[in-house]
């Protein structure tokens, strides 16, 4: 085999690991459509596993990386692991650069002159602001190593004191004159864990995300909040010019860190005959450092948990990869297949009706007119499905109705990226071109917020921005168009195939796709796993491969700092498949349902979790909130109502339903 191998590559090219406050973890999906079981027993997972450990703590989700050998023609020869190699040495470099990065003020309003923590190491590029970067350095784990490598770093180092705007909200301190700066002291945060490296039984790499900690290092502490809601609303003091106090302040809270990260994954393999192969260039021996080859090495991103693991967002990062690299789209040129290309979109749309009040049809605007059971938007009903799978002219009106309801991204090419050029760190200007000026089509689908941000908020701020609602990608819309015109084959419902049952040659792509399928590909405000930078070809060497010269941590740095404030804030029509807006209780006998807000309960002070100002409460609540999973019949099948899968909340930590005083009195 050794003589035939011309290259090795790691898959997935971009991996996704998710935070959890438990020390236990499970491995994320490795084939499209597979919802993995979290392990353990007596739980609601697909195979009876539990998302929580015995202490009710939320398990982390790990990403497994595998190595594949290719011949000169790009044919997959084998997966390389301890079965067929002498040794494997993994090299990982991740960082958290959020505190050092540019402030996030919406993708269209990006301003390279506005930094987070602007008083610390001012005037430098983000990568140069080393006091604000959590950098564990290069870490390795090799065959035979049985203990995990914990990647740790420090942040806010070497800073004694500074000043922050007096309009910020502080814990236990109210400035006498908010118009004057407040002096704060800094205490460095040390030993922050960004993740762990483990090896599985065959020396594949398991990247385990961090425990989800966040903290403020200043005294007095800056409260995680949106000060513009109380100081000079709607956009804060100084006409909203300061991203620390304006309407985007909760993305850029000074003095805060979180333990998400991103960065590069490489491997050097020594075959049984002693041949050394590496995903890095210029490697001759197993321990050579070499240089990064972006076509062969991989990337890891860590992100908050996905609380509805069976549901997919209608536009995923996978869709964005193919939007940016249409030449890599595997179904290009193929006849549209209903069950492969259309039906999954309808399933996603209908599933929103179990996690979003608007999609459920329980708000005044959408009452009984959305995607819930027996509602006109139940695209999975028998009547609709009969029409949708009928290519004849008889059903064309129904198909055209669906296509005509779909929104296209603004601009002549229908691509989000066109309105956001040039890429950061340049200031975007293309959206100001007349071709992107269009009325907001709030009646079209999907009725979820877009990268331009909520229309109501933009109106309040006087912003005229494109893409205020989410649009499908052109590849997705092209399939719907073909289908609406009758140019399609029906196909059969897809049955997900586990990785080990796939032909060898199909495994790499299965890994690449499955890591990104259960993610959020818009609206990017800024995103929840990967920021809007995923839409730019410039940042990638090819599909699924982060480009050379991209520093570890620099892409994820565009996400909210810390993530919990944004995660709380996005409580309506953003990405309810990751962060549900509402959850239902279902009465099987009566086929009726009632809902509650997903973010509810008591905080650590005994106050109810807020629907209007819960930024800081998410810090406490996130690992206790419930999972949204299919309700099962006695025989293990999913409960259906009007052909929809019924979803309800499971494994919510009961501690969240009791104020702390009550907990103490019961002990």
């Amino acid at each position, binding site marked *: 085999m050794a003589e035939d191998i011309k290259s090795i590559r790691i898959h997935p090219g971009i991996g996704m690991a998710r935070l959890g406050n438990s020390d236990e973890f499970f491995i994320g999906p490795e084939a499209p459509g597979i919802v993995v079981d979290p392990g353990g027993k007596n739980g609601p997972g697909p195979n009876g596993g539990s998302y929580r450990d015995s202490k009710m703590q939320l398990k982390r989700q790990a990403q497994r990386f595998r190595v594949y050998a290719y011949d000169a023609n790009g044919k997959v020869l084998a997966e390389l692991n301890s079965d067929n190699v002498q040794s494997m040495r993994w090299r990982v470099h991740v960082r958290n650069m959020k505190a050092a990065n540019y402030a996030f003020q919406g993708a269209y309003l990006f301003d390279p002159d506005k930094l987070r923590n602007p008083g610390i190491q001012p005037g430098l590029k983000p990568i140069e602001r080393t006091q604000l970067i959590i950098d564990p350095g290069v870490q390795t784990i090799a065959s035979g190593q049985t203990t995990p490598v914990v990647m740790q770093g420090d942040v806010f180092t070497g800073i004694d004191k500074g000043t922050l705007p007096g309009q910020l909200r502080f814990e236990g301190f109210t400035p006498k004159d908010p118009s004057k700066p407040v002096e704060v002291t800094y205490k460095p945060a040390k030993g922050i864990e960004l993740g762990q490296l483990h090896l599985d039984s065959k020396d594949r790499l398991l990247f385990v995300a961090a425990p989800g900690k966040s903290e403020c290092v200043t005294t007095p502490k800056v409260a995680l909040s949106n000060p513009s809601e109380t100081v000079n609303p709607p956009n804060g003091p100084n006409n909203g010019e300061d991203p620390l106090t304006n309407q985007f302040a909760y993305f850029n809270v000074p003095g805060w860190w979180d333990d998400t990260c991103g960065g590069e994954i490489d491997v050097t393999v020594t075959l049984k005959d002693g041949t050394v192969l590496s995903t890095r260039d210029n490697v001759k021996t197993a321990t050579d450092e070499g240089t990064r080859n972006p076509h062969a090495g991989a990337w890891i991103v860590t992100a908050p948990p996905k609380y509805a693991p069976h549901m997919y967002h209608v536009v995923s990062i996978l869709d964005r990869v193919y939007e940016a690299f249409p030449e890599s789209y595997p179904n290009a040129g193929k006849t549209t297949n209903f069950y492969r290309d259309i039906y999954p979109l309808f399933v996603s749309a209908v599933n929103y009706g179990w996690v979003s*009040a608007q999609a459920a049809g*329980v*708000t*005044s605007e959408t*009452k009984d007119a959305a995607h819930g059971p027996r509602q006109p938007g139940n695209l999975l009903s028998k009547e609709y499905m009969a029409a949708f799978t009928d290519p004849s002219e008889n059903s064309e009106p129904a198909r055209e109705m669906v296509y005509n309801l779909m929104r296209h991204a603004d601009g002549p090419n229908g691509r989000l990226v066109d309105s956001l050029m040039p890429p950061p760190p340049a200031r975007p200007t293309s959206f100001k071109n007349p071709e992107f000026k269009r009325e907001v089509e709030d009646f079209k689908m999907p009725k979820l917020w877009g990268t331009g941000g909520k229309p109501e908020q933009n109106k309040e701020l006087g912003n005229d921005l494109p893409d205020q609602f989410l649009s499908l990608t052109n590849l997705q819309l092209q399939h719907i168009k073909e289908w609406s015109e009758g140019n399609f084959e029906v196909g059969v419902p897809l049955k997900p195939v586990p990785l080990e049952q796939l032909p060898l040659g199909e495994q790499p792509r299965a890994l690449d796709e499955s890591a990104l399928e259960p993610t959020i590909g818009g609206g990017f405000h800024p995103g929840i796993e990967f920021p809007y930078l995923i839409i730019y070809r410039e940042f990638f060497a090819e599909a699924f491969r982060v480009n050379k010269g991209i520093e570890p941590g620099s892409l994820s740095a565009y996400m909210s700092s810390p993530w919990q404030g944004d995660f709380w804030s996005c409580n309506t029509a953003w990405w309810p498949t990751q962060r549900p807006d*509402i959850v239902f*209780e279902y009465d099987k006998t009566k086929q*009726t*349902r*009632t*809902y*509650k*807000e*997903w*973010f*509810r*309960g*008591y905080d650590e002070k005994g*106050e*109810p*979790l*807020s*629907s*209007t100002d*819960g930024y800081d409460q998410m810090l406490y609540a996130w690992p206790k909130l419930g999972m949204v999973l299919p309700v099962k019949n006695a025989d293990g099948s999913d409960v259906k109502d009007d052909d929809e899968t019924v979803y309800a909340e499971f494994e919510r930590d009961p501690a969240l*339903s*009791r*104020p702390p005083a*009550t907990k103490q009195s019961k002990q």
Partner: protein
Amino acid sequence: MDIMRRHFVKGCAAASVALPAFPAFAASPTAVVGKTAPDIEKSIKASFGGGFSLKAHAQAGGQTYANIEHAGNWYAVASENLLDWTIVQSSLG
């Protein structure tokens, strides 16, 4: 109590559903006393979410009953400890 009941009926009419009548507060010698509307509102928000609001309440027979509203939807709910609530009836059907 009468005022609360009138609000309750008005709310029901607005939602076009018939919600169950509360037990007569004065008829029960074991009525929970001392739980104020703010106590109940706090419990409702913690149990159902901050967007839910308390529209009416009564206490009788060791139970607290409340009419709550969210986005035009009404629930009649009951609790014996102000921690765990049961939805007795709902405008959602």
